[in-house]
C-alpha cells in the first residue's frame, strides 16, 4: 500500500470564535480523483486553503506524500508537488496567455530566480509552453492578455497554469462554476486528460461533474466530513440526502 497523497489528521480551523473546519480526518489515495461536496458555507474552500498553505491551520496535521506540510507557506508546498486553482479565476490578467503559461513553468524547469537567462532564448521552456497551450486548446489565443479572455477560456487557462508545474497533486476549486452545459463538458474532458495519472482533489457543485469524474467523494457539512465513499454509495446514502441534497431542495 503506497502512502496517501494527502493526509489530514484532526485538522481544525477557526476564524475568531467561529469554527469553520471541525476535526477533519481525510486520506486521499495516490492517483485517485477525489471530490469534496457539501452545502454552501460548509468550509470546502477553507479546506482547500488549509491544504495548499494559504491559511495556517488552528491545530492538526497535514501530510503531502508522507511528508508533513502543516503551516508551510504556499510556495513551499507548491514546490513539494501540490498545485491548485481558485474558485474565483486567479491568473495574471495583464500578461498574455502564453506568458501566463510560461511563468507557471519557470520554477519547475529550473530557472527559478534567474536574472541571467533570457526567456525568449530558452528553447526547452518555450517548447513546453507550446505543448501545454496545445493541450488546453489555446494556441490561437496565445497573444491575448489573459484578462480579456472569455470566462470559460480563463478557467481553462487557469487549469493550464495549475498543471504547468507538473505537480502530482492537483486541487481544483469549482473548475466548472458559471459555465454553460457545453463548456462544462469540454472542461470535464480537459480535467480528465490533464490529471491522467495524477491525484486530483476537487470542490464542485455540479453533481453530474462530480459523479462523472470522481472515484471517491467526501461530504463536508458544517466543517465536518460526514462520510467518504464511492459515488454510488454516496448517491444512496440517506444522511447525505438529508444533510446535503435535502437542504438544497429546501
Amino acid at each position, binding site marked *: 500500500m503506497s502512502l496517501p497523497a494527502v493526509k489530514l489528521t484532526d485538522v481544525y480551523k477557526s476564524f475568531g470564535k467561529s469554527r469553520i473546519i471541525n476535526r477533519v480526518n481525510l486520506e486521499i489515495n495516490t492517483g485517485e480523483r477525489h471530490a469534496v461536496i457539501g452545502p454552501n458555507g460548509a468550509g470546502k474552500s477553507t479546506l482547500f486553503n488549509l491544504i495548499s498553505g494559504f491559511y495556517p491551520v488552528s491545530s492538526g496535521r497535514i501530510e503531502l506524500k508522507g511528508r508533513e506540510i502543516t503551516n508551510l507557506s504556499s*510556495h513551499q508546498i507548491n514546490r513539494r508537488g501540490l498545485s491548485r486553482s481558485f474558485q474565483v479565476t486567479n491568473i495574471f490578467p495583464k500578461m498574455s496567455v502564453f506568458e501566463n503559461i510560461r511563468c507557471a513553468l519557470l520554477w519547475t524547469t529550473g530557472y527559478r530566480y*534567474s536574472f541571467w537567462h533570457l526567456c525568449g532564448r530558452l528553447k526547452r521552456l518555450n517548447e513546453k509552453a507550446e505543448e501545454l497551450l496545445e493541450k488546453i486548446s489555446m494556441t490561437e489565443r496565445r497573444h491575448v492578455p489573459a484578462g480579456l479572455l472569455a470566462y470559460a477560456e480563463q478557467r481553462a487557462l487557469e487549469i493550464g497554469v495549475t498543471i504547468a508545474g507538473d505537480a502530482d497533486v492537483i486541487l481544483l476549486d469549482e473548475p466548472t462554476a458559471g459555465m454553460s452545459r457545453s463548456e462544462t463538458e469540454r472542461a470535464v474532458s480537459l480535467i480528465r486528460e490533464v490529471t491522467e495519472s495524477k491525484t486530483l482533489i476537487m470542490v464542485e457543485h455540479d453533481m453530474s461533474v462530480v459523479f462523472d469524474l470522481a472515484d471517491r467523494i467526501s461530504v463536508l457539512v458544517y466543517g465536518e466530513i460526514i462520510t467518504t465513499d464511492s459515488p454510488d454509495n454516496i448517491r444512496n446514502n440517506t444522511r447525505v440526502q438529508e444533510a446535503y441534497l435535502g437542504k438544497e431542495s429546501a
Partner: protein
Amino acid sequence: MKKKDKKGFFMWSKHGLWIAAMLIVIILPFFFRSGFSRSMLSQIGIAIIFALSYNMLLGQAGLLSFGHAVFYGLGGFFTIHILNTVSNGVITIPLELLPLAGGFGAVIVGLVFGWLSTERAGTPFALISLGIGELIAASSLMFPSFFGGEQGISGDRMTVFALTGIRFGKQITIYYLIAFWAFLSIVLMYLLTQTPLGRLANAVRDNPERASFIGYNPHWVRTLQYALAAFFAGIAGGLFAVNYEIVTAETVGFIPSGNVLMMTYIGGVGHFFGPILGAVLVTFMQLSLANMTHAWLIYFGLLFIGMVIWAPSGIAGIIMLHEPVWKAKLMKRLIPSYALAVFPALILFLGTVMFIEISYHLSLSVDPTAPMHLFGIHFRAQSLFPWGITVFLILIGFGLLQRAIKRVRQSWGEVNLIMKKESS
C-alpha cells in the same frame, strides 16, 4: 545573397532602435557645444539610469518607493571614497570602472533593505521606504567620516589613471563616459525585463497570491528585484560622483527620491522607455526653467499633478496610445482636432503663466513695487490691467479648450470605429 539581405534587414528591424539611439548619443555633443548644455547632457544620462532603475520597482514590480535616492547617494559616496583610496595609491582601479563601486556597494545595502521592506507591497512597502530614507538621511549627520558632514566628500578624478588613456578633464570626456554607462545600463535593464526574474516581478506585481502557487516566494522575488534596482541606482550615483567630484548628504535625501519618482511617473511607468523620456524632460526643465523663472517649481508641480490626473500612463502611455492609429494609417484623422486644440491650450498656458509670475512677483520678489517684465513687456504687478488680461486669458482658454477636447474625443471615436470595422 538574398538570404543575407533578409538577415540584414532583420538585424536592423530588431536592433535598429538601439543602433539609432547609440548614434544619437554619440553625435549629440556636436550639436550642443556650450559647457552648460554638455553638462546638462551628462546630467540627463545619469538621470536616465536613475529613473529606469526606479521603474524596476514602481513599474515592473509595483513597489512605490519614497527612498530610492538612498542607493543613488550611497552609490555616490562609495564611489567617491574608492576614488580617494585610489588617489592615495592604496588600490588601483581605473576611473572608467569606478561607478561599479557604487553599484556593488548599493546592491549589498539593497539586499538588506530589500529583505526588510518587501514582505508586503503596497502601503507597508511605501511606508518602510520612507522610513529607510529617513534613516539614511539621519545617519548622514551622525557619521561625518563617511558622509562628510555639511561640505560632503570631494575627490579629484584627474589623480586616477584611466584604462583608455583618456584624460578625463573636459566635460565632453565625462559625457562619453556617462553615455557609455548609460547605454550599457539601459541595455542591461531592458534585458532584465526578459529574464525569469523580470517576468516574475510582473507576475508578483499583478497577483502575488498566484505567484506563490506556481512555486515563487513573492518576498524573495521583490527582494532580488529591489537589490538589482539598487545596483543601477548605485551606478547612477557613482557617475554623479565622477562627474561632479563631490558628493553631499543631499544626494541620499528626500528631494532626489521625490524627483526620481516624478521623472519616472511623468515619463510613464507602463513602458520600458517611459522613464527615459521623463528623465530627459524633467532634467531639461529643471535646468533650463530654473534659469528662466524663479517659480519653476510651481510649473513642475503643476505638470506632475496634471499628468497624474489626466495622463496617468505618462508620456510613453500617450505615445503608445497612438501606435494602433499610426499602424492603421489614421493619424491624419486625429491631427486636425489636435491642431485646433493647440491654440486654446496656448491661451490657457499664457494666462496661467501670467497668473503665477505676477503672484510670485507680488509675494516673493525683492521689491514688489518695482515694475516687472514678462515676455518683454514691462508693467506694474499692482495695476488692475494685467490681472484683467490674466483672468480673461484663463477663462477664454479654458472655455475654448473644452470645446477643442470635445472635438478630439469625437475624432477618436471615429478612428476607433474605423479600426474596429477593419479588424472584424
